[in-house]
């Protein structure tokens, strides 16, 4: 049994003009203490996938399919039962540390409440444990910091607080949704280091959601690439980085700067991510694809397993090589 199993998950949002599919029939598994990255542009459905799993979709969102944690179905689970799992067994760190902490409560009460709720600790014990957690995320002067309000802390400090809250219940899975995007570049590196070290120390699996391949390369074991709500490719980091099979993964890699190969020319993917309300026919990527075939315009390629255990969703089977574009 896998720790976390997602099967045929779809997420739809009802809007005034109809229904929008944010996540389209995706499946994946995550094992114990594994680090998996979900990569995609904004609007690719990567965040909605995990929000759906934890019952955190916006009011007009509906999730169908199945999400199992240790064999227990999470979709459709009563809030009361779900609340025993989220924040306890599965914790989440959000993108924007500036707004994700309650500005009207001191750090101490925001930390203590999870421990008293899930671990049944007394307030004094919970406070001690919280201070210990703040030390663990390497926040200097934890005893002082814990008495403050969020607006008195910097973005990096707040994100450390968020991580401390998330890890304080010793969850089996930590989900981090773009945890470094809102932070300074210098702080980003420290934060990734922290994630890597802590999940190892705590023996937690890490689901890292990001659009930044540079972040993924450093810490993930496996990665999944999403485009317009669909999973287009998944495999280990080495496989995807050194021999991508899907043109979108290929495009992403060539549009990300590499520290080890600064000479490489960056080539952004042409065009913009499609609007979910108005998806292209067939494969949603075809308008931006250099390798498209005729059938890509009519038919969406399914995700299929190739011989070596990798999966990708593309009809094109040839080699992916950079093509110089007309007029250049």
């Amino acid at each position: 049994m896998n720790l976390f199993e997602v099967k045929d998950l779809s997420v739809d949002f009802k809007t005034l003009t109809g229904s929008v599919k944010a996540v389209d029939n995706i499946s994946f598994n995550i094992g114990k203490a594994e680090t998996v990255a979900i990569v995609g542009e904004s609007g690719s459905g990567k965040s909605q996938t995990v929000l759906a799993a934890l019952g955190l979709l916006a009011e007009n969102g509906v999730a169908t399919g199945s999400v199992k944690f240790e064999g227990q179905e999470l979709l459709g689970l009563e809030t009361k039962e779900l609340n025993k799992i989220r924040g306890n067994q599965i914790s989440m760190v959000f993108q924007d540390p500036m707004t994700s902490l309650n500005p009207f409560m001191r750090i101490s009460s925001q930390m203590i409440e999870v421990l008293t709720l899930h671990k049944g600790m007394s307030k004094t014990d919970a406070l001690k444990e919280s201070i210990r957690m703040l030390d663990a995320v390497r926040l200097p002067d934890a005893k002082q910091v814990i008495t403050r309000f969020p607006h008195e802390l910097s973005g990096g400090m707040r994100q450390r607080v968020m991580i401390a809250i998330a890890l304080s219940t010793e969850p089996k899975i930590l989900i981090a949704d773009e945890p470094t995007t809102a932070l300074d570049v210098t702080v980003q590196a420290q934060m990734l280091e922290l994630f890597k070290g802590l999940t190892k120390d705590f023996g937690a699996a890490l689901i890292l959601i990001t659009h930044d391949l540079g972040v993924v390369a450093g810490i993930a074991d496996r990665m999944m690439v999403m485009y317009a709500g669909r999973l287009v490719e998944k495999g280990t980091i080495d496989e995807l980085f050194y021999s991508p099979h899907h043109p979108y993964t290929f495009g992403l890699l060539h549009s990300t700067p590499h520290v080890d190969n600064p000479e490489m020319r960056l080539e952004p993917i042409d065009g913009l991510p499609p609007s979910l309300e108005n998806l292209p026919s067939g494969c949603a990527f075809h308008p931006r694809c250099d390798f498209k075939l005729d059938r890509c315009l009519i038919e969406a390629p399914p995700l299929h397993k190739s011989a070596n255990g990798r999966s990708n969703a593309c009809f094109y089977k040839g080699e992916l090589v950079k093509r110089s574009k007309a007029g250049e």
Partner: protein
Amino acid sequence: MFKFILKRIGIAIPTLLILIIFSFTLMHSAPGGPFTSERKLPEQVLANIEAKYGLDQPYYKQLTNYVVGIVTKGDFGPSFRYKDRSVNDVIAQGFPVTLKYGIWSFIVAVSVGVSLGIVAAINHNSVFDYLAVGFTIGAQVLPNFVMAPILVIIFTLWLGWLPGGGWNGGQWQYLIMPVIALSTSYMASIARIMRSSMLEVLNSNFIRTAKAKGLSNRQIIFKHALKPALLPVISYLGPTFVLMITGSVVIDIYFSTGGIGREFVNAALNRDYSVIMGITILMGILTITFNMVVDILYAWIDPKIRY
């Protein structure tokens, strides 16, 4: 915090002085003295009366006397119409009545308005929510002077349950209609503000964090959402208070409750300057003090305001 309070008092006092000086000057510059309106008095009698009320003294002297009287003794001077009544007598008689149904109305408007707003927001897009929104829109055209006769038609004329006016020492039967009439439209405003601010807060990132923590709905609403959602309501309390004080005049007139509003309108009709001025200043003192308390309360709740 202490500094903030001091600063706030530092604003309140000059405001009050300006109100007093403004009212006094206005009265003083009124065309014709307070005793010139009715039948002509003989020259000598008029001079005697004016001397008695200190009206023969220069303007600044009268003003200083008036201000000193209010500040040191809480004395608003004599009534110009009733020989043996001072403005303080008029206030002492009517104010307790106004205060009683006023406080009740305020409590009802705030407590019902806030709860209505919260319940509507939690059940967003439910039937209850639609009803609540309908009520807040409809109540815009139900000010106190419309509510009062409608209540009398329903509860006195048709149902015969409640007396159509009077006070009777403030028994509950006499209290109900004044309180409903005075509080309805403000209750609706408070409910509208509360609902929209609660909806905004419930959609904020930190509430999503609270949900992700596994907190129950009750904990999320009362521990995380209530305080920030209340802030806009708190800043509306000042205006509500002013509007209710103003509305009390209608209540006193329509229900004959014997509150201070009746005296105010009578004084206005009789040009009893000192009573109008006294009541205006009293209401000013109440309003300014209340606004100050609300500001301090706001600063105390919102950790982002540094004192």
